[in-house]
């Protein structure tokens, strides 16, 4: 079941109605009900992997209790180690086993040993990268005494499997989400109404922006040698909007859905295409992952409070791991490497924390300098993203090389609809850039609100496309 399907549009109101009608009096019923529907939601993909998520949850529930009960630091370490090995082991087996095996064979062949190996057919369980990180954060936070271990197995299981964010995030920390499962939710009109608005905006971003751009992007990346420089350039720019529309659209629908049930998930995208440098960009892009790496990898390595060499090393580690998290392919690792290369000069010149506030916070339009910085950041990240999208590093270099070969003088069959919806996206998000999401218009006059809802509905209806998945499901 995916968000942009008719089944979900039927599933959500039914689940919502039963939730508030039957379970409003008891926290236990609320949580049990959410757990059942979350498992049902996940089971719609492949019920066999329910055992995996249940086993992962059970072990971390038990480990957290053991950590808390242990008096000795070393015993605590052993238990947190069990959690780390188990979660990273699961991820490693399902996501990276073939990658390591293939790479090892390639290495042997490179040094002259003949090695042969048949790749195992391992199915990647949907959402495994997200929920393993979520449960890991729980055991680590218990180990660090940031949170008490959960006493209720239902609460904990419901937290791990909470259906709006189970498949592609946001990666919710136990410190934020688990306490919300520990107190009874009451219906709040403003929260639910804003949740609906955020969902509507998410649908627009996914089915209109991302899925329209996808058509051009797929053509451009399928065989770069068949496209003109102009087409490849547009394909690269459209990919930026496809990825953003797809993933931030998913996050908006997830956060909006969660609000209908009385939960507040963390903001996952804060208008990253208005960022003025790469540091700001990643503070605004997939924030739940960035913050996870920052808290559980970057800071323990010393962060930026170490010597120059270690500082640079830490930046590379964080971006390389981030790349590898996205997929078992050298393209993602190289993409991470390029991001680190782009980031390091900024850090060395101590300009990486220059842009903490949203651009043009006190004016409607940005200054020329700000506008140029936004443009430059956007274009550079677009070029880096070619490695994210291409099938291999060679393909990515070929793609970029062809852009600069200035071959062919056409822009291809440019879809005017894609351009128009990208403009709508940028204008609306610019207007609401200080808010939590693009359609946070709860305080605007009624005619603006209802005008926006109906306009978006018509745009989705007339210009939406159907796709069968979200890009980030594969991660």
């Amino acid at each position, binding site marked *: 079941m995916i968000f942009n399907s*008719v089944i979900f549009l*039927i599933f959500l109101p039914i689940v919502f109605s039963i939730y*508030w009608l039957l379970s409003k009096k008891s926290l236990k019923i609320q949580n049990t009900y959410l757990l059942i529907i979350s498992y049902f939601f996940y089971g719609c993909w492949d019920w066999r992997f329910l055992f995996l998520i249940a086993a992962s949850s059970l072990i971390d529930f038990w480990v957290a209790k053991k950590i808390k009960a242990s008096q000795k630091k070393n015993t605590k370490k052993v238990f947190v180690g069990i959690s780390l090995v188990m979660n990273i082991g699961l991820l490693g087996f399902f996501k990276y086993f073939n990658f390591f095996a293939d790479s090892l064979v390639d290495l042997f062949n490179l040094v002259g040993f003949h090695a042969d190996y048949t790749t195992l057919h391992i199915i990647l369980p949907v959402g495994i990268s997200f929920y393993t990180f979520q449960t890991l954060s729980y055991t680590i936070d218990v180990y660090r005494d940031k949170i008490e271990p959960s006493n209720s197995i239902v609460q904990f299981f419901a937290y791990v499997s909470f259906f709006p964010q189970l498949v592609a995030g946001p990666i919710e920390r136990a410190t934020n989400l688990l306490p919300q499962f520990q107190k009874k939710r009451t*219906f709040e*009109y403003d929260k*639910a*109404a804003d949740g*609906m608005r955020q969902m509507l905006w998410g649908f627009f971003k996914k089915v209109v922006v991302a899925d329209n751009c996808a058509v051009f992007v797929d053509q451009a990346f399928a065989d770069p040698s068949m496209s003109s420089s102009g087409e490849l350039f547009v394909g690269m720019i459209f990919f930026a909007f496809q990825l953003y529309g797809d993933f931030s659209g998913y996050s908006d629908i997830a956060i909006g859905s969660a609000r209908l049930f009385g939960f507040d998930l963390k903001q996952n995208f804060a208008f990253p295409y208005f960022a003025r440098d790469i540091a700001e960009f990643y503070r605004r892009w997939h924030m739940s992952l960035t913050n996870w790496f920052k808290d559980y990898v970057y800071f323990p390595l010393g962060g930026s409070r170490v010597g120059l060499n270690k500082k640079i090393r830490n930046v590379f580690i964080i971006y390389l791991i981030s790349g590898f998290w996205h997929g078992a392919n050298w393209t993602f690792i190289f993409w991470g490497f390029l991001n680190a290369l782009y980031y390091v000069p900024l850090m060395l010149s101590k300009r990486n924390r220059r842009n903490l506030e949203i651009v043009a916070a006190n004016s409607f339009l940005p200054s020329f300098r700000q506008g140029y910085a936004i443009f430059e950041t956007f274009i550079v990240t677009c070029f880096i993203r070619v490695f994210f999208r291409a099938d291999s590093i060679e393909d990515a270099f070929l793609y970029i090389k062809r852009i600069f070969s200035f071959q062919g003088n056409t822009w291809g069959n440019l879809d005017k*609809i894609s351009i128009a919806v990208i403009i709508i996206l940028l204008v609306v998000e610019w207007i609401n850039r200080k808010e939590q999401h693009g359609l946070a218009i709860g305080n605007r006059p009624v005619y603006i609100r209802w005008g926006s*809802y*109906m306009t978006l*509905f*018509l745009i989705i*209806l*007339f*210009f*939406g496309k*159907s796709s069968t998945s979200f890009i980030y499901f594969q991660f």
Partner: protein
Amino acid sequence: MKKYIKKVSLFLFVCFVILTAILLKYGGNIDHFYNKFTTPKAKSMILGDSRAMQGIQPEILNKAIKSSGKDYELPVYNYAFTIAQTPMGPPYRKSILRKLDKESKNGVYILSLTPWMFCSGDDYNDDLGEFREQDQPPHNMLYVDVNPNYEYILRNLNLFSFRHVFKTNYLLHKDGWMERKKLSKDEFSFNSRKKVQKDMIVDFLDYYKLSNVRKQSFYDLIKDLKEHGDVFFVRSPIDLDILEIENKFYPEFDNFIDSVAISNGIKYFNFTRHPKLKEFSNYDGHHIDKKGGELFTKALADSILSANQ
């Protein structure tokens, strides 16, 4: 909560009204098959694949039958789809019987036939009841005669393209005939379209195999339809090179249809041997265009009417 439900209901109601208006007014623009499920149960039908869906125009047939004074029960609806959806077989038979008005006693049923309609895909075992078409319309539809048809939109939303309200190349008429619009008539465009179709048909050679289950279902369908009127077989006019591929795949096809026709007292009109074959113009080698379709349907109507004289 009441306020919330009231506002959400209002929003959904307005969306629902807009959607309904579009379905009623532009159902034929926004989906290739939607209109076929919005007309009443049919007393007479055109059945088959895309050649029949685009080539046989019910309006012309209805006029010709009416003016001849024949007492066939009208109107005729075009309930043909595409080869991917409606080869002969239990699913199509079931859907035809759903669409059929059981009260009809003197209907006319035109079965447009091709060799591919008696085949199964290589990766399906129809002896086990596996049919490649079973998840698609019309087989995923329970209600085939309601207007507006919300079941269709719920089950097949991915097939809709609402932007075609403004501009469309395919218009599905209310009577089920699909009109191909805005065709470039130059030779280059024709050849490119034909190449795509020809390549597809060449691929069929490897993918398809004749199926006894589908043949049996064809016999059952004839029996069902004969209870409600007259049945006619037709093979649509197509370009000779495409015909050659089909004959290579199933050299005995015409003999097979002839024998079934004779044993059931049914007329078989084979337009691939028609003297005016070239006048039935097509736009890609085997799908007849609007003008060719007018001539073809008239010729078919004449054949049907003269068959019973």
